[in-house]
């Protein structure tokens, strides 16, 4: 280690824009961390944020969280690294976060070097990789084609420690990274300061979900990793918070298909032999390994699937609910007939009924389908080639379904209770993952670029 006291201390937060304990952060600062880090993104909530380029969190929340972290890090003189800025880590989101950071620096009179690490993929690089057979799908996704690349509105690569190391080496006080592997936020600085790769990576993996490594995530404690020669400790920084062997070990295995081998662009974090020991409110960890591999980066791309309009209604009549399948089948037929009457081609839209209270969550694996629900929330979900087409079909869905008489006697009454006015909602573009692949690269930093900006 190249630090004065032979320790490397990494102060970790959970997600920018989800809040955290300011008091816990202050106590973390008292430990003089060598880095303040926080993730800002996730692909878990779908491709919509990558597709639209919109930020997934409220700018009001993002500003609060960033301000506290930037001021604190400036006070103790350590860098701040924010990963996957704006949710998906695409250019527009990175620039949006940079604007907020510049505002904070101006308002507080802080001079700082800011680095933006761009993760948007140059399509020609990806076309070449497809030609050279250097891409492979994850899970059930099909092989990547040139058409998939061209159909994508945005494609990002997920960076490891390499590009963040470059930004820190260039003198950045604040590193705003595009799409980024969570542990890389911390591992880059740890390795710059001389931590061995296995300790740097595993410690980073244990803290990269912030307060999720504590027994009470809702308390919003940050967590501090202290790396020493042959082990690291993970501890909460908020008074009264606690890390346990279970909470720390679980965090490192969370969100991975294989809990023992956690893939990073430069190799695998292997926690098969890791040993965890409870020491007060902290956990001491040793025994993991890092297995370098030929470099590869994960790619995420989004394509436009259409535009969505929905109708949300309540259904309560037990006679209709007892015959819901028949009701929905006839309802769908009527909506198709209306579409034909409007000269809308069948290939230009699709209709999906989501019956909340029955099987909207689990679909065809729902085990409890034998009883008639008390009530359901029915979402008539239409995705069409244009917003106008989706709106036209959904606009006819309310009267058509409300008057559809499967039991006799609806007459001038209706099947639907409307909670909202207007009852139709036009939700805009819908995206799908077009790219969910891994690309082999010569150098893990190759797809990324570091831009230093004045502040």
């Amino acid at each position: 280690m190249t630090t004065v006291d032979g320790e490397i201390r990494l102060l970790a937060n959970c997600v920018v824009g989800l809040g955290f304990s300011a008091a816990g952060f202050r106590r973390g600062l008292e430990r003089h961390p060598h880095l303040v880090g926080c993730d800002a993104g996730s692909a878990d909530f779908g491709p919509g944020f990558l597709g639209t380029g919109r930020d997934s969190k409220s700018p009001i929340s993002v500003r609060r969280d960033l301000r506290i972290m930037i001021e604190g890090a400036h006070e103790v003189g350590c860098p701040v690294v924010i990963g996957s800025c704006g949710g998906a880590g695409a250019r527009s989101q990175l620039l949006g976060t940079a604007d907020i950071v510049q505002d904070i620096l101006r308002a507080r009179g802080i001079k700082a070097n800011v680095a933006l690490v761009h993760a948007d993929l140059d399509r020609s690089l990806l076309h070449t990789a497809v030609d050279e057979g250097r891409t492979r799908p994850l899970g059930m996704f099909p092989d990547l084609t040139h058409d998939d690349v061209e159909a994508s509105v945005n494609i990002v690569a997920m960076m490891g420690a390499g590009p963040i190391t470059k930004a820190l080496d260039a003198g950045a006080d604040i590193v705003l990274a595009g799409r980024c592997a969570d542990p890389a936020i911390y591992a880059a600085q740890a390795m710059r300061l001389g931590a061995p790769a296995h300790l740097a990576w595993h410690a980073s993996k244990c803290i990269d979900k912030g307060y999720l490594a504590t027994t009470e995530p809702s308390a919003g404690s940050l967590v501090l990793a202290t790396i020493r020669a042959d082990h690291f400790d993970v501890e909460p920084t908020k008074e009264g918070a606690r890390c346990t062997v279970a909470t720390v070990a679980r965090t490192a295995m969370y969100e991975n298909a294989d809990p023992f081998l956690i893939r990073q662009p430069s190799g695998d974090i292997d926690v098969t032999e890791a040993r965890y020991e409870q020491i007060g409110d902290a956990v001491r960890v040793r025994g993991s390994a890092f297995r370098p591999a030929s470099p590869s980066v994960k790619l995420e791309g989004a394509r436009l699937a259409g535009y969505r309009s929905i109708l949300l209604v309540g259904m309560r009549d037990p006679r209709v609910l007892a015959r819901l399948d028949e009701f929905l089948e006839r309802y769908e037929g009527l909506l198709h007939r209306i579409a034909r009457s409007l000269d809308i081609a069948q290939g230009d839209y699709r209709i999906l009924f989501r019956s909340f209270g029955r099987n909207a969550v689990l679909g065809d694996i729902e085990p409890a389908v034998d009883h008639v629900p008390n009530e359901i929330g029915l979402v008539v979900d239409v995705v069409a080639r244009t917003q106008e087409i989706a709106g036209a079909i959904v606009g006819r869905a309310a009267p058509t379904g409300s008057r559809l008489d499967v039991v006799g006697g609806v007459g001038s009454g209706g099947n639907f209770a409307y909670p909202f006015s207007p009852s139709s909602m036009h939700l805009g573009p819908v995206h799908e993952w077009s790219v969910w692949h891994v690309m082999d690269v010569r150098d893990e930093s190759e797809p990324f670029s570091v831009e230093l900006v004045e502040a």
Partner: protein
Amino acid sequence: MATLVEVARIVKSANAGAAWLTFDIECDDAQALARVSAALRSDLDALAARLGGAAAHISLFEIGALNSIKISVPRRHPACGQDERDFDGLQQFIPLLDLEVP
């Protein structure tokens, strides 16, 4: 016979990226874990049917330090498409709860 929800302390699910779903089951002790593990492994086809996947694609990992077992399966459909029901996969564990554990 006891069911999984009675034997295990934690049963939960989440995405492991958009291509995979993972199910984490934690028990209080090694003995309970052994029972759960045996029950899950006794009929992988039945397990796959509950999770809506194919037995050949199921991976099971036992984590002794946590008395836990992780099940990983590829998502049934390309994840997060326009017909997605549960983007983050957090409610997909429900069909496991009444699995019989001898």
